[in-house]
């Protein structure tokens, strides 16, 4: 319930383009985009998250990746990775 509320609030934020929750296989659990785009995002970001996590842990194995932000010209993609899922939010930081 609280989770739902928070999700809704995030989705309703200023500038949030999309919110997605995908599981480890890339199957969307919650998404505000269409399925194909979601799957595409999930696949690409999953790989990137793996690489980022590998990088972080290579430097210090006791460390771990908690959050990933990619800032581009148009959007900011924020990924909260976990063992079982990926939480992705795409925001337009300008508006």
């Amino acid at each position, binding site marked *: 319930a*609280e*989770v739902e509320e*928070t*999700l809704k*609030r*995030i989705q309703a*934020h*200023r*500038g*949030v383009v999309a919110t997605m*929750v995908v*599981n*480890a*296989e890339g*199957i969307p*659990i*919650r998404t505000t985009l269409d399925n194909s785009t979601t799957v595409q995002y999930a696949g690409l970001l999953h790989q990137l998250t*793996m690489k980022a996590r*590998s990088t972080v*842990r*290579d430097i210090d*194995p*006791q460390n771990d990746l*908690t*959050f990933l*932000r990619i800032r581009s*010209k148009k959007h*900011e993609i*924020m990924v*909260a990775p*976990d*063992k*079982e*899922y990926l*939480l992705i*939010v795409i*925001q337009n*930081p*300008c*508006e």
Partner: protein
Amino acid sequence: MQGPAGGRRPPLVRQGSGASSGSQRRTSILSGIYANKAASCRSLSTTSDGKAVDRASLVGNKYATRVFDDEGKDVTPRPLFRSDPNTVVPRQGKLLASSAYFGATGSGFLSSFSMHQTSGVNGSLGSFSRTYGSSSTSLSNASTTESVLDEIVEPGSRQDTAVSLSDVQVRQEEIKEWTKEDLGRRVDIYLTETETIWILDMPSVVVSVESEDAGRVLEQNRIYVDICKNRPGNDRFVEKMMQTINGAAKNKEVQCDKIIMEDKGMLVTSWDLYDSFNVSEIEPTSKAEGSRATTGKSSKSHTAKEHNQTMLVSSNRGSTTSSLMISESAVLARIHEEEECHSEAILTSENFQQNLFFMERILMENIFQPKLAAYRQFPVLIDPDVTSDMSGTVAAVKEAKQEEHDKEKKDKEEQKDAFVDPSILSDLNKTPEEIVPPRLEWLWSYICDLTNGHSVSSMAWSKVNPDLLAVGYGAFDCKEQKKGLACCWSLKNPMWPERIFRCEHGVTALDFSMASPNLLAVGMYDGSVTIYNVRSCNDTALLDSSESSNKHTGPVWQMRWVEQDRGATGDGKKERLICISADGRITEWFIQKRLDCIDLMKIKRTESEKKKLPGEKERKREALISQQAAGMCFDFHPKGPVYKVAWNPFSTDMFLSCSADWSIILWHQDSQTPILTFSSATAFVHDVMWSPKSACIFAAVNESRVEIWDLSASILNPVTSCFANPRVKFTSVLFAENTDCLLVGDSKGEVSVFELQNLAAPNNNKVGTLHDIIGPAVAI
């Protein structure tokens, strides 16, 4: 060995070297190889009888050489072949037998053993042993020869893999304990020349014409030519063919299992190794979703334990990185019927909630970053990629900055409505002035749907976390009472409060505790006091005063946690909760199982009809006493109810009070009459507060404006003020401790954060200034 053997040799043997081709051949084979000039113990041959053992032992000890490397470690190459000690015994017999055998063949080779050779054949015969074993035609010969020869092996030579059994036996037997005398004993070494060893002998086929045999040879040649001429067609030469018997070839087939080769690639990373080491230490956490997790995981962890030194075999997903968790979840995800509950589990998992929480905060940060930076008094960074076509806060801030830089400033009287619509900022375009007067700039508002409609009644900062704000919401007017709300807002999330506590009655006062900073005391309209634990998200109160028999009967207007020095009792500082309510009692509450209170003092009412009583703000324990005095002061002052009293944080004997009679009054502790009166608008002044940074600045909020007064600048007019939305009334004001910001609460439930800009630099010495200012007033 040699000695007795040699003794039995007939001396004739010497010529045997040239004699029969058979024996010669054997010799050549025997003499096979290399002239290794071993300086070592050919002494075997020269000395006779009994010393043989010694020689042998000498020789044998040559095998006991050891090789040491630089560090003194023993790196003697170990023999590649270890024999059975059982077969050592017949060695002696064999040797004798072999020598007898040799004698029988009359091999010229053995002549080398004969002792009586003055020139003696010596022994690089030791070298024979090596290749002889492999190339010999008669095996028994080989073995015996070897056994004989091997004693002569010089130390530096390599041990042959083809060394036969007896070899090793010899070596092992010969090793015996050396004593010091043995080492120091004089050893005689005899060097002699060996006999010429014929390796290849090809007699020439050309004979000189002048030799004796020439005639004979010629004759033979002629006869041969004749024979060749006569051969074809001659009856004496018949061609005949023969069939040779070919031995039957036998094929043998063997079948074996196909050897399956697989290539496996693996990316090994240091965290991978770390994980595999730690897997055995981490307990397999059973996932709530189902039992599949435990079985899958335990099997994986077993494999991990086995392979913890080597690379983990990746799961059959084909990915090259191996990770227990990933492979496990892949296995899990394949179970289709559990997928649904799996996704549900994800959504409800704690990690997910936490991630959502972070995500929200980060979103907030993105949106509010310029504002937050201004709050913290960092320079506001302008994102170069940000396209400038949006209205709103960023643009407003930029323009505001530009305005400042361009020194376009407005007059004090024409303060812009920064609060309402930031875009109005751009409209103002005044002539530049030299000095930029202070102004308020709206940063953001704490507002959400939940609080909409409630009126802000009180605000308090957390003592420990300067970014945590508690706001109490209650109905503004006494007539309508709704359910109240106390919310904790964090700087990091201006759009949703961190904690929401719902109260039955409107909240009128609240305060954070200092000693246990997670306690928030809330006073309500019906006079009850509750204490909440901010750490938990629970809505329920920690302690409630509703059971107390002594509670207030009127609304609680002010409450404070007061820290006291109890030097006498030796308890150190203790904190007490003190509150004041409309029933005229100041009570102290004890936090035990239930909240209970005792009266500290009663405030008398005199002449004026006060509907509400003043709240007090105490800095120290002894302030209580002056409270009493102040109480009396108050009796005289207001024509309307006094809403707030505030001590000057820098000067201990002055305080302000604000009341519904549109005025703010500065009092001095000792005098019974006001020192200074400030009034600027015809509106109730709801709240007043000194600035924590300067002794001369305070903020007051009346229904339509928030005003900043700077006594050092002017005592007649506020330095700056900010208008509110026409529908909204300001109800409370609070300074931020660590930054130049002001929080203003209004009757719509919104708490706006304003930044004070260009205010006169806070000077700690303002107390003196303050006294100077009021000096004339006091004197009057």
